[in-house]
């Protein structure tokens, strides 16, 4: 692979980071992930009524979606619930990960760990039925029937999805830096903010992203917990499943994708300007 007689700097050319074939697998993965997305985008411009039978190019479904208040409201509601649920679940999961990973074993750690992962252990329908019955009692008792139930249900369901990546990050993380900071008379909070938090950041970002997409996709729990006028995009689609799904949802998805991509691009341009050197 490399010339063994070469001086030390040449040795660097043999990148220690590269694993043969890994990049190709990764690229294939990315391509495969986007193949169905291309299909979704293409069919959003279908002039026919089908998501699988191409009839011609048209913007008809964008017009349909534009006029359909119900589907727009459902989409916005989905995003709002996902935003709240992912923030809440990421915050509590970060705290719990600090509590259960940092600084060794303690009494009750396994109990907490199993409890946090519990939502993964039963099919969603079971949680859904239980929540329906429990929340209905609260609804009748309090008279409040707003979105908070859905947000709470989603947030709780998303906790393990946020927790596990954060914990994976924290486990075996060097506590020396934190101790050093403490030695330098940093307050615990300062040490946490300046040292631990930045080190945890990639785990938190990964966890929050997972929580967001899990909440955005959730259908069965939502179907059972939602009250009048609280359809989300997935439950709207579930209702269409028995009949025929039209490219309207493709159009909505495409718009959502476009907004995401634009926001991301803006974000990256802005942060690049602020910190030219990473």
């Amino acid at each position, binding site marked *: 692979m490399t010339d063994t007689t070469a001086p030390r700097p040449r040795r660097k050319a043999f990148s220690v980071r590269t694993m043969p074939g890994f990049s190709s697998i990764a690229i294939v993965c990315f391509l495969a992930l986007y193949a169905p997305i291309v299909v979704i985008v293409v069919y959003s411009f279908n002039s026919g009524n089908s998501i699988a039978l191409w009839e011609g190019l048209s913007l008809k479904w964008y017009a349909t979606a534009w006029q359909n208040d119900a589907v727009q409201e459902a989409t916005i509601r989905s995003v709002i619930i996902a935003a709240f649920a992912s923030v809440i679940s990421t915050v509590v999961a970060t705290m719990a990960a*600090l509590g259960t990973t940092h600084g060794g074993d303690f009494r009750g750690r396994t109990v907490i760990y199993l409890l946090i992962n519990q939502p993964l252990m039963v099919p969603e329908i079971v949680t859904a039925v239980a929540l329906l019955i429990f929340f209905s009692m609260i609804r009748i008792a309090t008279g409040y029937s707003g979105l908070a139930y859905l947000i709470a249900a989603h947030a*709780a369901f998303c906790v393990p999805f946020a927790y596990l990546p954060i914990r*994976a990050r924290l486990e075996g993380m060097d506590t020396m830096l934190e101790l050093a900071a403490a030695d330098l008379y940093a307050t615990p909070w300062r040490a946490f903010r300046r040292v631990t938090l930045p080190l945890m950041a990639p785990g938190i970002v990964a966890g929050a992203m997972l929580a967001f997409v899990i909440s955005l996709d959730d259908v069965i729990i939502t179907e059972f917990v939602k009250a009048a006028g609280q359809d989300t995009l997935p439950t709207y689609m579930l209702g269409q499943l028995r009949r025929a799904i039209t490219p309207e949802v493709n159009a909505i998805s495409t718009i959502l994708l476009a907004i995401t991509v634009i926001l991301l691009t803006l974000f990256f341009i802005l942060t690049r300007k602020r910190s030219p050197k990473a």
Partner: protein
Amino acid sequence: MSAVEISPAAGTDQEARAEAARTRRNWLLSLPAVILLLFAASGPLVIVLIYSFLTPGDYSGVKWIPTFDAWTSILFSRDIFDDTLRLADAHLTIFWRSASLSLLTTLITFLLGFPTAYFIATRPPRQRGLWLFLITIPFWTNLLIRTFAIMEVIRNEGLLNKLLMMTGLISEPLQILYSDTAVLIGMAYVYLPLMVLPLYAALERFDFRLVEAGYDLYAGRWMVLRKVILPLVKPGIVAGSILVFMPSLGAYVTPRVLGGGKHMMIGSFIELQFGQGRNWPLGASLSMLLLLIVGIGLFFYVRAMSKEKAHD
């Protein structure tokens, strides 16, 4: 945070107090998550547990007549024709199919996800966020519509078959749709980010000087991968496989749409009991049993993993 821990422990009394303080602190940190879960996930499951000991209602729900029927009928069912009590092999078949399919899904997502996470973690730091987003963006579209799009890709006249035929690899379109292969492709697709993100979180902090040291000691790439990299990212592997294995056990949409729904999985079987089957207690007892098995499995899995780590 760690101020308590580093205060030099003078005597056992002080040590015990420090220990108690640490336990208290850790519990306090975990408390919001515990409360949230008890309120909106695990707590209400008590209702399901109670239901599993009741009699099915005539048309849905339950009647408040206590019985163990739901539990015994998981393993033994009375034959509806000759009324003999026998092993409920249908339940076992369904359970076994779900478990093996989930295991395969976990394996596939790991084999694809590890190189992908590695790839992202070895990009320049500024680019990593972008690649991470690239992994999650496909999941901003709805699961159902995504599953239908996968169907469009793998159907007989779909993208994949056309591509394969164009390259001359096959001459006849492959019937992938409505097969176990289709379910595996779909599940691997749906659960890939659940594997990649935790792996990335663990890999990202990885110190590549260790790899360099490995090479300096004339270890081959495979050796370095196995002896240096994998053990260090084990927490990520644990997290990823939990996140993929457990939800795929209860997966419902993907097997039904891509597999054609001809074979039941544990998720759809439990769904049937709460829906058209009108047997809530059986659905409840099945899910409680699942909770028990998976919970115990997780307990030993995590314990084995942390033990191994202690040995390293």
